[in-house]
């Protein structure tokens, strides 16, 4: 691959991800509006799409304020961590044959490592704010991530066994032969999706934020672009998880020939993004201990059984 092409893909990925996140600000609110019998933002530009730009300008123009009682360095660092981690996660996503930043042979591990790092952002943000609500949010996120991290990894091991590789490109290519993994690894898919929502802490797994309980949870003290970074991080996470589900379980770029592969990838990812937004519109939030119980008592055994069965199938069939 020529050098300029790599740079082109790198910048394309960064701008694509950021642009996607910015448009999601508008898109999510618009979609929620439609589902909730109202209009949603429709004033700026056609269909209100200018809102994405207006929001970004507003966030940049706001006062960059650090509360005097906060731990200054950590307070500023925390929101950057989530954006960095999520962006790095995009490095291993294969958008189409040959269009990826890098094809690591440990891509799956790298992806999980990066999403785990994003947890620090929430935890540190909660701690550094020196605010009781933020602290509770930080605590909750720590507990939530520790539990959901475990079977997020386990849920993917079935796929790894079937493919025999951690490389995402290999995983997609294997699906071309063996069919989408959503069929053979259905339970893995369910568990991964749950863990994915938890990882990007969106409703019903938005306990660290839980505006009805903790005001704004871990980012109570954040404003301006630092708050914006958390939001961008959340949307980046949403896109990343959606594209991972699409890559690992739904055949990535695979699809009939009348559309180029990258379109298939985009469409599939888009469907999952919509699905996540729909979840937000539909489901109430479980309590924090109920969430833990659900994770440890139901999802973890499910992924373990899935792993055993897959192992048995790979070994004996």
């Amino acid at each position: 691959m020529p050098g300029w092409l790599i740079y082109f893909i790198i910048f394309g990925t960064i701008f694509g991800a950021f642009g996607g996140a910015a448009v999601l600000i508008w898109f999510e609110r618009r979609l929620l509006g439609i589902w909730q019998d109202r209009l949603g933002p429709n004033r700026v530009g056609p269909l209100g799409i200018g809102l994405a730009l207006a929001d970004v300008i507003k966030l940049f123009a706001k006062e960059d304020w650090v509360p005097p009682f906060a731990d200054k360095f950590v307070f500023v660092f925390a929101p950057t961590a989530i954006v960095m981690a999520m962006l790095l996660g995009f490095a291993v996503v294969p958008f189409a044959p040959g269009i990826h930043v890098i094809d690591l042979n440990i891509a799956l591990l790298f992806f999980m490592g990066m999403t785990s790092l994003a947890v620090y952002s929430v935890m540190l943000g909660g701690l550094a704010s020196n605010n009781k609500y933020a602290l509770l949010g930080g605590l909750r996120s720590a507990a939530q991530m520790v539990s959901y991290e475990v079977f997020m990894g386990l849920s993917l091991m079935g796929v790894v066994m079937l493919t025999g590789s951690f490389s995402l490109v290999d995983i997609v290519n294997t699906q071309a032969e063996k069919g989408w993994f959503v069929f053979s690894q259905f339970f893995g898919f369910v568990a991964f999706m749950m863990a994915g929502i938890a990882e990007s802490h969106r409703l019903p797994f938005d306990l660290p934020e839980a505006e009805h309980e903790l005001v704004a949870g871990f980012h109570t003290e954040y404003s301006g672009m630092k708050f914006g970074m958390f939001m961008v991080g959340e949307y980046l996470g949403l896109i990343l998880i959606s594209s991972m589900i699409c890559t690992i379980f739904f055949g990535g770029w695979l699809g009939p020939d009348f559309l180029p592969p990258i379109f298939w990838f985009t469409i599939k990812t888009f469907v999952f993004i919509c699905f996540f937004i729909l979840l937000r519109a539909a489901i109430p939030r479980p309590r924090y201990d109920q969430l833990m119980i659900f994770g440890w008592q139901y999802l973890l055994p499910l992924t373990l059984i899935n792993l055993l069965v897959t192992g048995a199938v790979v070994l004996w069939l």
Partner: protein
Amino acid sequence: MSASAEHALTATVELRQRLPHMSFLTQQTIDDIPTLWILREQLCEILRFLKSDYEMLFDLCGVDERLRAHRDGLPPSDYTVVYHLMSFKQCRDIRLKVALSENDINLPTIASVYPNANWYEREAWDMFGINFSGHPNLYRILLPPTWVGHALRKDHPARATEMGPFHMTEERQDKEQEALRFRPEQWGLKRKNKNTEFMFLNLGPNHPSVHGVFRIVLQLDGEVIVDAVPEIGYHHRGAEKMAERQTWHSYIPYTDRIDYLGGVMNNLPYVMAVEKLAGITVPDRARVIRIMMAEMFRISSHLVFYGTFAQDVGQMSPVFYMFSDRERLFRIVEAVTGGRMHPAWFRIGGVAQDLPKGWHEMFTDFLDWMPKRLDHFDKMVMQNSILKQRTKHIGVYSTAEALDWGITGPGLRATGMDFDFRRDRPYGGYDQFDFEVPVYNNGDCYDRAMVRVDEIRQSLRIIRQCVANMPAGPYKADHPATTPPPRERTMQDIETLIHHFVNVSWGPVIPEGECSVTIEATKGLNMYYLTSDGGTNSYRTRIRAPSFPHLQQIPLISRGLLIPDLIAILASIDFVMADVDR
């Protein structure tokens, strides 16, 4: 003598026989509730005796009697404390009064007999400076701790212009802020035990889930609530004080804003009490219109509850659906009354206007539309398994506890108590309607919500009967005190013109007397207890709001639970801060 007056008399005689060594002085009141003046020394004993019959301390309030002109036959008193007890088994009330002299405003606390007296006594202390000896924490409750004087005393100014100019200096601001600081020791809370240091979390007065300006300070061990101290008063606007300055008529809009989701339902007990004092009989059409509009507002209030309940449990969408249906309802309210949330539309002696042309179709459309939507909401909210997990077995209290703490309305019916004022002690014409009283048995958040959801359906049923059987006739009584009086003859004879002029400019004169009217409002039992001294404004207006005692018992049902549970509890109580603070 009417049946109820006779009943009141026999109740008094019976009490005299059962407590021969006590001294009583009976007072005749217009509402025929047996009213007895008792001695301060005998208060606790009598209340303890009465508790077996009268399960609930329904209300406790003070009255500053120093300027009252018409007190013939009553014992001398500068400050009177009124205890209003209610029996649910026998469907009757009793009112006890204790006279206090200005030089010795002391009284024993009755919090050990009726636990909900705690806040009521604090309120009486706050408003009148009545000292309840033995009270565990007799601090101000509605006014800020820095307030000077007792607001409902007759010598306390009623408007800001009667006081000196107000300056918020930096010093003063610091002082006020310091006064708001929470001191656990003041409430008998420990800062740590041998294992942990507790965190004190200030939930409110501005918090997304406290439905207004309500502050509740939590003593937390991790996220587990060890204890809680609710603090109210941030929404206090002195509605009872304003009543003493407004005319009987011009006070009606203020009542709308007490339970601001209840709209005209707030007018109902007030105008009914004034009508009783004045001896006005309201024509049938007006009575049915009143019931119809009051039930509309019950639906509106319950829809807000329904949506916010789901929202507080984390479900984002239902509130939008419910508000759009509420909007449909408001369109009808607007067509009928001209207003939306606070139409102030009931009048002394009737309602403000007759129903508009085409009202029938509007109501019928709404009645056809709503049941389908309610079925849909049921599926979306009440049958949702996460919501059930979050709200079942959370915030449980028993019927006995509910009665002890003065809980009325849906919160009481959720504990298995089959009592509805509309059915069991009908007022304003409710005896003519056919409806059921939904009752649930667990007393938890989920059941409190279920009661309200079923009540929406019953309200629709009542409205349907109103629409089908709306009587013809006048919408206003033909009585001199009706305000504004019927206009037909105003331009014909001088007598009617004078009445009109006087009633509109000065307001009607209501004969002296005392009267209370209780209704089943949206949040529970709402009572207006009016004292007239024979003038154009009330001598004392006491508003017994249902939400006030509901908040008092929050610590009881939230100990040992988590913060999200507390939010579910707050949502399920369905309170309005204006209804609490008045």
